[in-house]
């Protein structure tokens, strides 16, 4: 097929953003809304078409496009495999929902907001497509600019602090990755991921390079102890910003771990497994406990994200098919569920302008539909069988039990804690007597809120009962990645004997 479908996926949102920028409708935002909705939906349909065309039994990269870019140094190269395609679909799926949710949440400068979201979509799709380290870095970093503006312009009280913290933390992590990428270029002569998979990187460089990549991904994941930017960013970002951040931005790092850390530096990855396990366990247990203590709804969900991403990193570094597939599934599931939870928080925040849990209670009697939807996602987040959350956590724990019994047991405790803080949150908000009289005035979900939330709920339950379409897409690629990993390890141990 000659049509550059991936490049169009990347460029299309930005083209839409340019249309909005130069559209002369400063007072009337409808045109901007429709353009952005149209563009993002078209992108979603295109990505579904991509999924349809995608060959699940091919373990290599498909839809590869390569163009001369920095002459003699770096080519623009993009392509997808079973690992990345799901993230692209997640991105194109979440973005239109964000744009619908914007209707009620963003009051001022809507046009700029839509531009920022569309540019963000370009960057996120670019991250998941890129098959060249420099191109990857370019998209990875460029995403900071729109997100900085989203948090800073439309955020809450401490938005400036949070935006700066978000930007500088991530930048600090990433510059070391840039050093590593350039070093890889001089060590191997290329930054093309496919070639690097074939060539392999000399074992003596792998540990330092792995750490440099880790510094960037750990901040972005975020892993304990560099997770502190996340609660701040989440709390201050507007609802749509939180959704993008939780649903997609965090996945860039998880994806990076699978694609680059495991794929490019197998020996170092093997070496650092216990390091990752320890950090992941701390993230799971410690942030779950912290989440229990939160008074702010968004902060609680933010900490739960850290805990969930702890499962993801743990699953990836089990290096088992179950673990990695589980991690990918968990990321998709977390993308759907956390997006929905942030939207749920946004719904009540728009009505009461407070996120303090103690101000709520007894919402079920005034907002019954909301209570039902929120219930679905609460159960999803704690991993009830029948939701996507269960399958992800189950596969990860399955993979971990294979590798390390103790780690898996401790992580299972995290599942219980997760149930505790999510159910407690739900109880405090939805059940009980109405103590705050203002809550009596609340109106139940309106049409657009109902649409977005029910789409997400359907996705969560559908793939919870029938995960096969997602799992079968990833299986072949994950298996070939693990094969590559194992053969590298064997080669290395053989050479060391």
């Amino acid at each position, binding site marked *: 097929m000659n049509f550059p479908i991936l490049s169009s996926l990347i460029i299309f949102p930005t083209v839409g953003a340019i249309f909005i920028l130069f559209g002369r409708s400063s007072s009337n935002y409808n045109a901007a809304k429709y353009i952005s909705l149209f563009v993002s939906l078209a992108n979603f349909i295109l990505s579904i078409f991509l999924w349809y065309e995608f060959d699940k039994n091919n373990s290599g990269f498909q839809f590869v496009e390569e163009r001369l870019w*920095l002459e003699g140094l770096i080519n623009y190269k993009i392509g997808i495999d079973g690992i990345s395609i799901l993230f692209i679909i997640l991105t194109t799926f979440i973005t239109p929902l964000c744009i619908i949710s914007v209707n009620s949440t963003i009051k001022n400068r809507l046009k700029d907001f839509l531009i920022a979201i569309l540019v963000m979509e370009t960057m996120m799709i670019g991250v998941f497509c890129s098959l060249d380290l*420099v191109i990857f870095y370019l998209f990875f970093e460029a995403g900071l600019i729109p997100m900085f503006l989203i948090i800073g312009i439309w955020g809450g009280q401490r*938005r400036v602090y949070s935006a700066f913290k978000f930007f500088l933390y991530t930048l600090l992590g990433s*510059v070391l990755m840039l*050093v590593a990428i350039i070093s890889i270029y001089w060590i191997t002569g290329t930054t093309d991921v496919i070639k690097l998979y074939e060539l392999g990187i000399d074992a003596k460089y792998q540990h330092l390079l792995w750490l440099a990549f880790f510094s960037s991904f750990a901040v972005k994941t975020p892993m304990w102890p560099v997770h502190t930017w996340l609660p701040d960013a989440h709390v201050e970002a507007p609802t749509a910003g939180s959704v993008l951040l939780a649903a997609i931005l965090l996945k860039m790092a998880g994806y990076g771990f699978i694609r680059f850390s495991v794929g490019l530096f197998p020996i170092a990855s093997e070496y650092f497994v216990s390091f990752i396990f320890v950090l992941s366990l701390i993230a799971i247990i410690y942030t779950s406990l912290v989440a229990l203590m939160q008074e702010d709804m968004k902060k609680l969900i933010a900490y739960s994200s850290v805990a969930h991403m702890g499962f993801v990193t743990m699953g990836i570094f089990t290096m088992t098919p179950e673990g990695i597939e589980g991690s990918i599934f968990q990321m998709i599931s977390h993308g759907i569920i956390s997006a929905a939870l942030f939207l749920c928080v946004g719904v009540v925040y728009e009505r009461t302008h407070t996120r303090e849990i103690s101000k709520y209670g007894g919402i079920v009697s005034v907002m019954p539909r909301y209570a039902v939807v929120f219930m679905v996602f609460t159960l999803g987040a704690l991993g009830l069988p029948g939701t996507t959350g269960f399958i992800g956590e189950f596969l990860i724990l399955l993979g971990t039990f294979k590798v390390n019994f103790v780690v898996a047991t401790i992580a299972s405790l995290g599942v219980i804690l997760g149930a505790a803080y999510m159910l407690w949150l739900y109880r405090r908000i939805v059940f009980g007597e109405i103590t705050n009289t203002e809550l009596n005035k609340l109106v139940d979900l309106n049409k657009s809120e109902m649409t977005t939330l029910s789409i997400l709920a359907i996705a969560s339950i559908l793939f919870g009962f029938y995960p096969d379409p997602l799992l079968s897409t990833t299986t072949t690629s994950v298996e070939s990645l693990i094969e590559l990993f194992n053969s590298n390890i064997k080669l290395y141990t053989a050479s060391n004997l």
Partner: protein
Amino acid sequence: MINFDLIFPEIFLSLVIMFLLMIGVFKKNSERLVYNLSIISLIILFALVINLYTFEESYIFNESYKIDILSLFTKSLVLIVAIFIMISSFSYLKTQSILKIEYPILILSSILGMMVMISSNDLIVFYLGLELQSLALYVLASFKRDNILSSESGLKYFVLSALSSGLLLYGCSLVYGFSGSTNFNTISDQTFQTQYGVIFGLVFIIVGLAFKISAVPFHMWAPDVYQGSPTSVTLFFAALPKVAALTVIIRFLYTPFVNLMDQWQTILVFISIASMLFGAIAAIGQYNLKRLIAYSSISHMGYALAGLASGTNQGIQSSITYISIYLVMTLAFFSCLFMLRKKSVFYEKIEDLSGLSTNHPVLSVALLIVLFSLAGIPPLAGFFAKFYIFMAVIEQSMYFLAIVGLLSTVVAAFYYLRLIKIIYFDKPKEKFEKDHNIGLKITLAISTGILGLYFIYPGLLNNIISRILLI
């Protein structure tokens, strides 16, 4: 037989300067005419220089004047940027009522000095060009005579620059004394690692030139001079002398002193690290945009020197790329500054930018692009500039330099972000005037366009720059 074609641009420029002086003296109220004529002559000059690209590397005047790709490229860079500087600063000069006939003539003489400097292949020719350039700049710095800050900056620049010229001359005389020649090629043949006299000379020359590009620890003049000079002159200071001086540094390091690479590499690494870090940290406390850009330019010079410190052709090319992109960023930034005008007063405090995005969305987007580019965030041009530098530095396994450089970009990102915060997150103030000179608008559009769209075809400059091979 001397081939005068090679030096024809310089001869043409000297004639133009004298001709314009005559017009200025004999024709009353000819400021505009002289200004426009000088822009036209710069354009002709640019065409003349472009025309020379067909020549091979060649020397004239007993090998004391060199025409090669390096000199031609930096000359055309100087000229094209000078044209845009002249176009964009016209309205500023008029509003500030400092549009006098001397102004364009001094600019042209300074450019003549730079061209001589860039092409020099001999200590004496080099010094001649340098002084011609500097003398014109002293006057330009204090061009707003009745403003105390402007006079101060002129005097300060003169005194400190004279000191550095003294050091430079002393270095030149040492080099001449120990190598027996003023010609770069001969010096190169005559110098060896063990000649301490030449090494002393080298250090003095590097110090003198570091002063001209305001690298730490010889940067003290820059913030005051930048702040005090009229903004159009600050733009000139921030852009052109740095290109000329950087070219001369390249020439010095890679022709006469190429055998002393071990010695000067250490010095350059130190200067470069100090400039990157100091520029980034000191800018945090600044509240005047011109002072801020002074510190930012100190930091940027550190990156340009980091490329040179690698001691390879790739390093030289990355430095030239860096300085080219830096020029575009400076031009774009100052074009934005020229637009902050209210009732004939130009605003240059950071807080004057407060909430700019509400009233001036287009100008704010331009500033956003410029500032993120200065911070080196992809996909803007500033990222590619830094990328090339670090490619060259890491190729030589100078990891310390690379990591310090990248960490100082994070520090520097803080103050660029603070500007963006003020523009985008803060409460709006009174509107600025919106009727801008068309030339200024074009300059801003072109320069931000280059910065924003550079990623589409980043090989733009490489075709020419990759032909610069000195070792």
